[in-house]
């Protein structure tokens, strides 16, 4: 059985652990053996984005030590995968031994929907859902990893689901980590428009693959449109696959 190492982002660990659990269940259902290194914490993205690279470097090294030997690392977050794939090699460019390890790791790190569709070759999970679904193209998944078709394939193959187009689905929701807190007026205008476009799409469910966007869009909807739902794709799929027993 193929073993895959789960890289659960800190946002999921602390605020959205259901997504972590759904990731685990999905991978198991796909016939792979998901493992979780308990020594993992955070990938270091907040420090990199704030310019504190000395601190980020140490966190990157910790991450590389924890995940260094794994054949495949899979995460339900595109931006954290981008951190590992693109920022680690930049951070460690002046330490050749670490750089080699970082570059090696970069090639083995995947976003969840990308791993399911591109590596496992599965695009139909046998899921059922009745309703209209829209998809938000998170920045780091779309432009960072070039992943867009993969999650859409998984959604369109859900039986009974009606995949609807959402205006400006590829435009940022206004999260941006520290940005959402430091520039609340601009961030609000952005997330407000995202949610208006979601509502206008006629969908009754918005799916995405990025915990940061989920906190932002979900937080805005919870405050302003509590009847509108937004979910992480992993959790949605896991819920929408009929239970076949024997699952832990």
């Amino acid at each position, binding site marked *: 059985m193929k073993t895959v190492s789960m890289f659960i982002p800190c946002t999921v660990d602390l605020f959205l*652990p259901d997504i972590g659990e759904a990731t685990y269940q999905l991978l198991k259902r796909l016939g792979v053996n998901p493992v979780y290194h308990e020594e993992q914490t955070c990938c270091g993205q907040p420090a990199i984005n704030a310019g504190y690279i000395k601190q980020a470097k140490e966190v990157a090294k910790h991450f590389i030590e924890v995940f260094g030997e794994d054949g495949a690392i899979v995460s339900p977050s595109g931006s954290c995968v981008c951190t590992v794939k693109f920022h680690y090699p930049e951070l460690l460019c002046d330490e050749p031994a670490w750089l080699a390890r970082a570059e090696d790791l970069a090639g083995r790190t995947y976003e969840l929907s990308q791993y399911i569709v591109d590596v496992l070759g599965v695009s139909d999970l046998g899921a059922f859902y009745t309703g209209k679904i829209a998809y938000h193209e998170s920045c780091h998944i779309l432009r960072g990893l070039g992943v867009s078709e993969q999650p859409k394939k998984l959604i369109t193959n859900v039986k009974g689901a009606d995949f609807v187009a959402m205006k*400006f689905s590829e435009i940022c929701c206004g999260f941006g980590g520290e940005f959402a807190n430091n520039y609340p007026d601009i961030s609000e205008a952005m997330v407000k428009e995202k949610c208006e476009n979601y509502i206008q799409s006629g969908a009754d469910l918005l799916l995405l693959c990025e915990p940061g966007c989920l906190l932002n869009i979900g937080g805005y909807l919870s405050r302003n449109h509590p009847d509108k739902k937004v979910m992480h794709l992993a959790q949605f799929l896991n819920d929408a696959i009929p239970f076949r027993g024997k699952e832990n």
Partner: protein
Amino acid sequence: MEIRTEQFVEIAKKELKNARNKQFLSVLPLAITISRPRSMQSFPDPEAANEYGRAVRAEAVAGMPELLEEFEKNALANGAKIVWAKTAEEANAFVLNLAKERGIQYVTKGKSMITEEMGLNDVLQESGIEPFESDLGEFIAQQLHKPPFHIVGPALNIPVEEISDLFIAKADMKEPTTDPVKLGYAARLYLRDKFHHLAMGITGVNMAVAETGSIINVENEGNIRMNKSSPKIQVSIMSLEKVVPTMADAMHMIRLLCRNCTGQKLSAYISIDSGPKKSDEVDGPEELYIIILDNGRSEIYQDIQAREALRCIRCGACLAACPVYCKIGGYPYGWAYSGPMGQVLNPLLLGLEKTQDLYHACTLCGACKSICPAGIDHPKMFLYYRVQEANSDKKAAGGFITNKTAKFFDLWRWGTTRAWRWKMAVKTARPFVNRYAKDGTINKTIKPVEGWFRTRNLPAMARKTFHERWAEINKKVTSDQ
């Protein structure tokens, strides 16, 4: 031009409430999602065309010193006069002295970002030489004393009624009108008169071709051509990075510039000057001055990362692509260059201390980078500035940000490099974070992240984190497996 980059937040707040801007800005993303792709499709291979353009810019920037020397040599051979200016003040002083020497009362100008950067209009005006902007949008912005709202359309946001009033007051228009053709005609009549008696025309430069010593201007109104062909003296001002190696390179960059700028395959007017009027020619200026302005760029060039900023060709595509610009418009950026272009350039040209908000007010969404025909990685530039800012934190005396952030990240590093410390920190923080939680949701403001809670809730910190759940999910699975 007044520098207001430090008022970013304040001006942005005001602009967010401007309903007219909102209406205009809400359709701006269509320039990137519809018109730009449509015009790029007219290349046989759009991606190859982009790659070629990026390569031209990379080569031009890398070889800038040698290319500038080659350009100077060939431009001199064409009969142009080359003036090297180290600073904006030097360039302004040259133009002013030349104008005074020749007894010039007024000048006309083609729209140019470099003269905005220099603040040339203010300098001329203070000495009694009236500068008339001849680009319609720039003319309006100038009369209203407003900075450019957008690099290509400086007055795109001004209501037509306001323009009508303005033209009656300042451009000899007789009747109020909202007809754009009539408004254009009024401005044309007014400015045509200035061109008739013109002694000195001032323009920017879109590209300077090293192999031929030619300068190129790209425009849609024909006013730049008037600035170059009407007067006896033409002054064209370029910054160092305008130089490209060959005419073929320039032609390709023009094809990219027009498509990215306005979604056109080619703009209505493109003029190429190789020297002033020759003895056997009937029109053109008798004297052509080309001012090559440094204004900090040779220093930028020394820094291999910062140098990437010099690739910019000022097409403005990044503005329409930017979700932040499309909410706040051009004014909050506080200077000549706005949007991602300004966020990359202004910190280098004005210093990091004055422009903190410019390199922080970004979600790092990468939309600008993904369409930049010059190959600039904007988010990487912002992170680079943030690193320098964080480093300046250490210098207690010279630093310009508080030590609080540094301390936070030191603590965070400590907590993040060992899982037991991470878990301990979680246990300590949870009751504090969740003190207002109700039904799994926090909807009351928690300091110091009040910005988040202004319009958003947050899920309560999980009663059991994934770490804690994992122990239950599968006790047998260990990190050694």
